[in-house]
């Protein structure tokens, strides 16, 4: 099975899958949740009939609360996002709603001050950067006996960036279609995908490391291809069969609260396996052959 021969095809496929989402993202498509922007989220249910979103919105407008948006839940409740509310304002709103729409029960209330939001964003970026740097260092250390050890680290990072880009892309599409937001759970999913993306790349690299000792006479491309094929069964079984089974079960039975989180994880982990085979390993080969030297020549002759 020659997987590496079509490496540029795989690069192109990834680009085609990722780019549309990134374009949505660039055009401002992905809303940040109140975890990052500050603000509040109030989810309520009603004993009587659920009022129309516009009616609830009117309550907010009368109370002079800005940026209110209303969303209905599958369970007949209502989620209202707005600027930061303190407890007094929240209670005032609740009593108005109870008077207008009948008994109103809080299911969920999140309120995040604006300063916290800013800090979460910057620390989150730092968390992602620090953890990926540490992993690269670890890989470079672990592969120190192999020629060009740092290449493995960087290839793993490129594969990881591929997965992260895909997650953002999927979330941007989800944001457009289902009103998904980037919240602290998304961040958790993101960091998990980073960890497991590395895990997958490392399994493939480990086989290359082992084979490069025993199969010296093979040229690099054949060696890498051979290593991928050898680990393919494991990749499919671990990823597609086990991890995805568990997560699919969570997605179907785990309730709405977790759905976005699970879908992001599912796509991210699948992408992690895909990228370890079709991005990380091919990049090593491209690097070994310094293929970028011929990229433009090819175009010229073609």
């Amino acid at each position, binding site marked *: 099975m020659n997987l590496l021969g079509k490496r540029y095809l795989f690069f192109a496929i990834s680009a085609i899958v990722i780019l549309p989402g990134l374009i949505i993202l660039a055009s401002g498509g992905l809303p940040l949740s109140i975890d990052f922007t500050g603000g509040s989220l109030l989810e309520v249910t009603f004993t009587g009939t659920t009022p129309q979103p516009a009616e609830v919105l009117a309550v907010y407008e009368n109370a002079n609360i800005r940026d209110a948006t209303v969303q209905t839940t599958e369970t007949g409740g209502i989620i209202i996002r707005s600027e930061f509310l303190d407890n007094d304002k929240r209670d005032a709103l609740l009593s108005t709603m109870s008077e207008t729409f009948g008994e109103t029960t*809080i299911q969920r209330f999140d309120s995040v001050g604006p300063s916290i939001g800013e800090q979460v964003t910057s620390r989150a970026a730092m*968390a992602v950067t620090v953890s990926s740097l540490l992993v690269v260092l670890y890989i470079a250390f672990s592969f120190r006996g192999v020629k060009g050890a740092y290449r493995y680290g960087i290839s793993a990072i490129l594969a990881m960036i591929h997965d992260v880009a895909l997650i953002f892309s999927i979330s941007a599409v989800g944001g457009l279609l289902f009103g998904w937001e980037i919240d602290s759970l998304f961040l958790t999913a993101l*960091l*998990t995908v980073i960890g497991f993306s*590395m895990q997958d790349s490392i399994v493939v690299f*480990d086989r290359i490391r082992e084979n490069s000792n025993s199969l010296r006479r093979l040229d690099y491309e054949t060696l890498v291809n051979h290593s991928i094929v050898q680990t393919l069964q*494991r990749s499919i079984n671990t990823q597609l069969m086990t991890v995805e089974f568990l997560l699919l079960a969570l997605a179907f*039975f785990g309730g709405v609260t977790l759905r976005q989180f699970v879908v992001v994880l599912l796509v991210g982990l699948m992408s992690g396996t895909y990228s370890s085979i079709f991005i990380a390993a091919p990049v090593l080969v491209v690097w070994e052959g310094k293929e970028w030297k011929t990229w433009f020549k090819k175009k010229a002759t073609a």
Partner: protein
Amino acid sequence: MIKRQNTRLVVIAFVVLFALWVDLSDTLLITNPFNGNVIYERNVKPQLGLDLRGGLQVLLEADLAADVEVTADSMEVARSVIENRTNALGVAENVVQIAGDRRIVGEFPGLEDTEGVINTIQQTGLLEFVDVGNTPMAAGTILVTDYGLSDAAMAELQNVPEGEVAPIVYSTIMTGGDLSDVYVSQDQVGGFQIAFALTDAGSEIFGTYTSQNINKYLAIVLDKVVISAPRIQSAITGGSGVITGQFDYESANNLAIQLRYGSLPIPLKIVESRIIGPTLGEDSLQRSMKAGLVGMIIVVLFMGIYYRLPGIAADISILLYAAIAFAIFKFIGVTLTLPGIAGFMLSTGSALDANILVFERLKEELRKGRTLKQAFDMAWSRAWSSIRDSNAAVLITAAILFWFGSAFGATIVKGFAITLALGVLISLFSALYITNTLLATALDKLNIKNYERWFGI
């Protein structure tokens, strides 16, 4: 293959029995059989996070300008003050923790009356001794003081439209943090007053100040409201003094208690609050339990069918893994949250991955025509480097997540990181020790010739 299989089996049995003991009980209790004395007792009730049982989470932040330094000590004092205050409300299993440098996160599970808690936390009980110069102050006057006020806020206060008078900002000499003891005492005519003793640092500040400001007024201010404003009659250098006011015993005593236990060394404000209704939590718990069960069944079937004998060994070791992991979560008191359950399921995936890596290797070596014994040994030793490196990457990520979650009081993120990291560690034990031992024992007893049937090659 493996030496000392029996010893290993005994170790596994021991670990599993202990795990089951923890799993199935709410408290661990060891009593001395001769006299019935309790030797060891530990509460191992499963702790459910707010998202699974409903409740209130509040994130408090020091209400001081960003450039004002907040010491770790004063944060700790503030934390225990809040803990004392909210415990007095009789809410069970509250958790009050310091998050980062200047934040405190409080979690109050299963709580219905969120108002009560928030009000109790917000009674800041900030006591200040304020320099009011030559102005006598009536009790009940509300003051603006410079304690914790940033320069920008100060400038804003002064920036009023023409014709209006900017509020006077009084300077705070010291705060309740400088008190070492507070109690109720009586004056000569039997009126109640509050006596206080100062810390060494406090008495120095107080001594210097009073000796330089004799005949001026010193306002004693609680939460920016003047309690009393006595005239300084002589320098007070002994490190103690009294607060007089219109007190009866009860009000004096309440104030003394508030000052003694309740004087927050720093003002706090609520920057984030989350309420999860009890029904939403219950629903999530049941759904994720069901999801976990369904997922596990599918995975167990898949492993058994695809990998045959080794798969069954892995299935047993995965079930034991789940029992051990749950026991450890209960034992060290990990709070289970929804993402925590997801983290646990992912680490289950990781446990399976380690098994799969080994089994694929085992099949490969068998196909190459090695003997069972050789293939068995090789599978574990060759798969080790990839298991080690790949799990290390996950552990590094979990550590960073944990740090991130702690700094922001995001207990949900923290819960995920803990269950993931612990799960990965236990999964290594499960794959490398339990599966390995079980399979070796089975192979010894079974004398297998037909690899195709037993290994699914």
